[in-house]
């Protein structure tokens, strides 16, 4: 039965880690802007294409 205490201690530790991760996320500003990153993630692909596509376009 005493293994339960160990498990509880361990699960509480994991839970606290998650709380810490959440607090860190808020602190580092991840909740400040919840729209722009969703657009930004698509840009990198476009950047590669850019080198070729407009060139073709001109010709």
């Amino acid at each position: 039965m005493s293994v339960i205490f160990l498990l509880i201690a361990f699960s509480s530790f994991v839970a606290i880690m998650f709380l810490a991760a959440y607090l860190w996320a808020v602190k580092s500003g991840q909740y400040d802007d919840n729209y722009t990153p969703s657009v930004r993630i698509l840009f990198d692909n476009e950047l590669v294409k850019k080198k070729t596509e407009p060139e073709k376009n001109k010709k």
Partner: protein
Amino acid sequence: MLLETKKVIKEKLICYHCGEDCPDDEIAIGEKLFCCNGCKTVYELLDANDLCTYYTIDEAPGVKQKNDIKKNFDFLDDTELKERLIDFTDGKITTITFSIPQTHCSSCIWILENLSKMNPGVIHSEANFLKKIVSIKFDENETTLKQIVELLDSIGYEPDLNLAEKEKEKSAIINKKLWYKLGVAGFAAGNIMLFSFPEYLSINDLDIDNLKSAFSYLNILFALPVFFYSASEYFISAYKGLKKKIVNVDVPISIGVIVLFLRSLYEIFTQTGVGYLDSMTALVFFLIVGRMFQNKTYAALNFDRNYKSYFPIAVTILKNKIETTKPVEKLNVGDRIIIKNAELIPADSILINGSAFIDYSFVTGESNPIEKENGDMIYAGGRQVGGAIEVETIKEVSQSYLTQLWNSKAFDKDEESNIDAFVNVVSKYFTFVIIVIATVAGLYWFSTDTKLAFNAFTAVLIIACPCALALSTPFTLGNTLRIFGKNKFYVKSTHVIEKLASISSIVFDKTGTLTETGSATVNYEGDELTEKEKQLIKSLVRNSSHPLSKNIYNLFDVKEITTIENYEEKAGLGIKAIIDGTQIQIGSKVYVNKDEESDEINLSTKVYLSINNVQKGFFKVNNTYRPELKKVITSLTNYYKLSILSGDNNSEQKQLTNYFPEKTKMLFKQTPYNKLTYVENLKKENEKVLMIGDGLNDAGALSASNVGISIAEDVNNFSPACDGILYANSFQYLNNFINFSRISRKIILISFVISFIYNIIGLSFAVQGTLSPVISAILMPLSSISVVVFTTLATNIFAKKKGLL
């Protein structure tokens, strides 16, 4: 994708850059058409820097280049001013945050984040779409602030340079704190609920009993941060309220939370029970969720702007015949300022040189630009239309005619006080009743069983904790706020909706509020004109830069223009010339008719015409009223006292009577200060005033009224300090908005009843002293959830019925 775009361009002649209609296909590069040279220039600039991806992310993403004039940003070299604009600098690397109101699509984000391609001095730039800001980090050795601003301006993203906006960051910190508190409370509530499971399932076993007490102590550990951190602001708010002798809703909440916590501690330490820590943490969690829901703000909008954010931060001054720039704040009496086209006059001044047409529409409500002669007084806030002028200031910026308005005490409003909020009125009686019930129950059992008396007393205070009561307002009003936002009516906070529900009187401004900005129509009344005469008129007015002339010029659809002789223009009076031997005169009544007795000395809304000294008739400039005005006013007539305050003359009174009922009070030639006093007097008559205006001249009245709504053609443009910003196209829903805020109040009332029903059920257990932690743990979240579900459903259903969804 690209091919499709081209097709569209061919058929409709749409500008490749900004997407607006092109007048013809003259301005073009290859197959790409542009509506103006401004747009073409931006395209060329982007093309040269290999940044044409801009056009592939969104179609025609550009911002129309309104004027070709390059703004002068020399003032950004002023060290002191610069220091106030930037966020941080170490001498080499500087970071600055610009507000870019033009941000509107993915392409905007892309171009703003690729500034380094055009200016290598830019190290990093990051856009925030919702807040419409961009943070730029740049190398001082390679570039300057001025160059960056000029770059942004040249691609159509002129930053809104403003010293007043820096304070916004404060609210962001408060918002972050709420996120922390939410996380802590949610974490604790979830874990405590898990640890309380043996209790919920009433498992009785020796081993389990051992565990139970261990769990209880763990629960205390988890509940401590919730009690001392997450719930702290409720205690503070309750304390502050009591200090002012106001029993707000946070008082019964605080009592509930404190009693829950103390009784739980007592039960756990005396090993008489497991306590109610699960209920307590869940309660705090729900309350914070409600608060977050209510705190929805429109980050890109600003509701607190005063004249300072309308005025430029620097002006061009002329000193010893050399043009330099100077921050507006340092402007002295006697400075000579150069005002260029579309620039603002920052302080009351006297015209020294140049032909001035001052557009005061935003400041005084006069709809037509006024012509000034040398030596005339020009008031601050007017906008020059036409060429550059030179003026000499005679007053300081803060002491000018318009800006003096801000010295009025109507602007010294306290921090948003919500004493009159409905929930606080209820909670006053609620708290009193609960304390009475608790005491009576305690006293009743006291004679028979002291332990039971203690149980009953605390149980009443616990179960009566008005969680559902406290949630109904934020959820109803939070939903309403979102529904309004979807209809482009942006309110500052949920308190505004409560105030809107109780208004009894509506005051309208005329220019810009009832009328559409920038679309005056000209009608001709009088003898019929021949084609030849029309041609003459058009040829004549073509020579004048007066705005009224331009309106008349656009009136006739005549292609041919004849050359004129003996052209003569009398400033502020009219123009005349001889064309093909015909003498033609256009101007004020005095000028055209030599009618000395007329009271219309200057050019007003009527422009007279005479040909060969025979009066033919006059041109009448009419304001265009909003298309739905009649409908809106009719829907309001029976319920509210209406009045109109106009800065204009009374020439439109007749027109207005077509729209407004007879009893409407109409006041003309109102100064900004007149408007302010009118609203204050209405309030003294116990009217709840809704003021609707648009300009700086309404700022005083907007501030003094119970609810001040500012109308904006473009919500990103300047709007004076107000409680809500209404998009001009949504003006037609005005009545729906007011009605819906009334419905919201009813929904709150009904949800109060629901929460009371739960309270009564809980109290029936509590007074008998039989409230077990399980019942409490079920009843409290259940009441909260049912209130949240009810308010959300009800607001959405009624919004659909009212056509707002």
